[in-house]
């Protein structure tokens, strides 16, 4: 057992910022906007550091996938007590297409490379609210997963976990190596102290990885979907809306709380485009 924990930290727009949509409608404004570490990732880092302080694990490695600025997020993790940082450099178009599946592949590859015993992630990111990365990473590695953890305790080579689920609290015991995702009540993240900030920045242990680099991770970042606007339609009667709704209800397509079905209905002839996000 290497005693090494990989903690994924994501750089997101700060939760207190008022989000604005870009003028070209392709996304939200991120330039010059305050970013910080995803709050659930902070909780994951705190848990990892606590495990290290209890001497249950040996090393905490913070990982972030994204452009150059992701190094700020790694820095914050180091200041909180992580030992090392790995920055997987993903920029430009690749970054726009970076989603849970791609990140999971990267994390899975890194976990093998680093011989990690545990992967700690936040349950979801506050920008896309996907809540998928932890689960996908576990599946790719064929590791057990403990998601929405509100309590974690290590017992030998097993982990006792309390999960917050719809029905209340679930107690499970899983083997290591495993993936755990942190929920809100797992802990209260510490403030970085001035000495820690100085130490972490002096040591500056951040490796740089490129995902397609041959000697490195060999992860392909293929975009999964593309957003297009419907073509402009000519005028006409708006019958298609009612018809479409009727068809949907008939087909029994339920609307789950976690999926969003987006309809883009053109007024007029039978030109509708259906996109599922």
């Amino acid at each position, binding site marked *: 057992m290497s005693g090494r924990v990989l903690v994924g930290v994501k750089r997101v727009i*700060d*939760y*207190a*910022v*008022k*989000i604005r949509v870009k003028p070209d409608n392709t996304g939200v404004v991120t330039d*010059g*906007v*305050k970013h*910080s570490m995803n*709050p659930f990732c902070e909780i994951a880092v705190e848990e990892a550091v606590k495990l290290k302080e209890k001497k249950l694990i040996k090393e905490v490695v913070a990982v972030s996938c994204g452009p150059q600025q992701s190094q*700020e997020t790694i*820095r*914050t993790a180091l*200041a909180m007590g992580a030992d090392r940082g790995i920055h997987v450099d993903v920029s430009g178009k690749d970054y726009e297409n970076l989603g849970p599946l791609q990140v999971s592949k990267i994390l899975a590859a890194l976990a093998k490379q680093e011989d990690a015993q545990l992967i700690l992630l936040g349950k979801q990111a*506050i*920008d896309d*609210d996907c809540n998928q990365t932890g689960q996908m990473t576990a599946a790719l590695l064929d590791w057990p997963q403990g998601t929405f953890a509100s309590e974690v305790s290590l017992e030998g080579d097993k982990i006792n976990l309390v999960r917050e689920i719809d029905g209340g609290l679930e107690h499970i015991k899983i083997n290591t190596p495993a993936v755990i995702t942190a929920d*809100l009540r797992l802990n209260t993240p510490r*403030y*970085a*102290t*001035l*000495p820690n*900030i*100085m130490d972490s*920045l002096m040591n500056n242990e951040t490796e740089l990885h490129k995902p397609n680099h041959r000697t490195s991770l060999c992860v392909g970042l293929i975009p999964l979907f593309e957003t297009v606007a419907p073509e402009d339609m000519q005028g006409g009667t708006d019958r298609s809306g009612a018809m479409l709704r009727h068809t949907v209800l008939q087909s029994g397509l339920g609307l789950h709380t976690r999926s969003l079905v987006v309809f883009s209905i053109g007024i007029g002839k039978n030109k509708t485009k259906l996109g599922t996000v």
Partner: protein
Amino acid sequence: IILYDIRCFSVRAVSVFNVLRSLSAASHGLTDEQKEFQKVAFDFAANEMAPHMAEWDQKEIFPVETMRKAAQLGFGGIYVQPDVGGSGLSRLDTSIIFEALSTGCVSTTAYISIHNMCAWMIDSYGNKEQREKFCPDLCSMEKFASYCLTEPGSGSDAASLLTSAQRKGDHYILNGSKAFISGGGDTDVYVVMCRTGGKGPKGISFGKKEKKVGWNSQPTRAVIFEDCAVPVANRLGEEGQGFNIAMKGLNGGRINIASCSLGAAHASVQLARDHLLVRKQFGETLSNNQFLQFKLAEMATKLVASRLLIREAAQALQEDRPDAVAICSMAKLFATDECFNICNQALQMHGGYGYLKDYAVQQFVRDIRVHQILEGTNEVMRMIISRNLLSES
């Protein structure tokens, strides 16, 4: 972002103070390290101080536990050497930290800055024994400090102080009294400026706790010495060096107090801005009113100007430049005056609501009003600057 997530974060106080883009000139030009310091200080201010600032003011609570938490992060001896427990940072780092903390509570941050000044004086001018005896406890805020210079009869004219210290064997016997001592009566270590040679009665006692317009989260009392015996081993530096040490302490203290004014002004501009975007009169939000737009622009401009001058002064002091004393005085003079005006105008923009204690802006105004008076009145600042200018020829 789905709404339920925002409710989840009600556990942590929402920090709006570090969000405004144009005023994030607060982090422009800073090193990565300084940005991290600033982030910690802003977070601490928003989560640990801002929610209590009104209560500390109204109930006159000296928030010992919160200050000790701050000390755990390294804020107890920011520019004290690490070998005695300090954080060993620069004057500029310090200014950035106090500016950020001040957005949470000016009065408490101002006291923390006074405490830091005392710890630094012992660190810089004390001998090995004194440093090891006093600094670690001060840096952890196990003990709190007060700076005692002003007397009932000597404020601006500090050199005319009367508190005497008469040598008797291996003790000095102190007689006299100090006025307006921040923390007086609740603190443990008193750095006292006194005149060696004198006469006197018994011990140290305190006057009544003063009732102030602001700065209510720290007690202010007269400190009275009657035949108070202080070991010679506690004398910082040489006999006769005291005035010099006191003034050197004040240079840094002036930057710190100015930084506290800056934090308050920064917070007030954000509050005013948010209010203008929400409050409607004559059928539209106040933010559409050109006079208020221009007023806000002027406030922001003066804020950034104050910030730049303070940071320049911090650099000058750090590098021990020949103009350091003058520029520290300029920074204190300009920033405390301008920031008070900014906070005052922010209050005005709130209309009647600004006058209610339910709104934070009035506390910022009350708390920073005294910054134009203490650590050297702004009139004395003008004396120092003009003396500097006129002596050059």
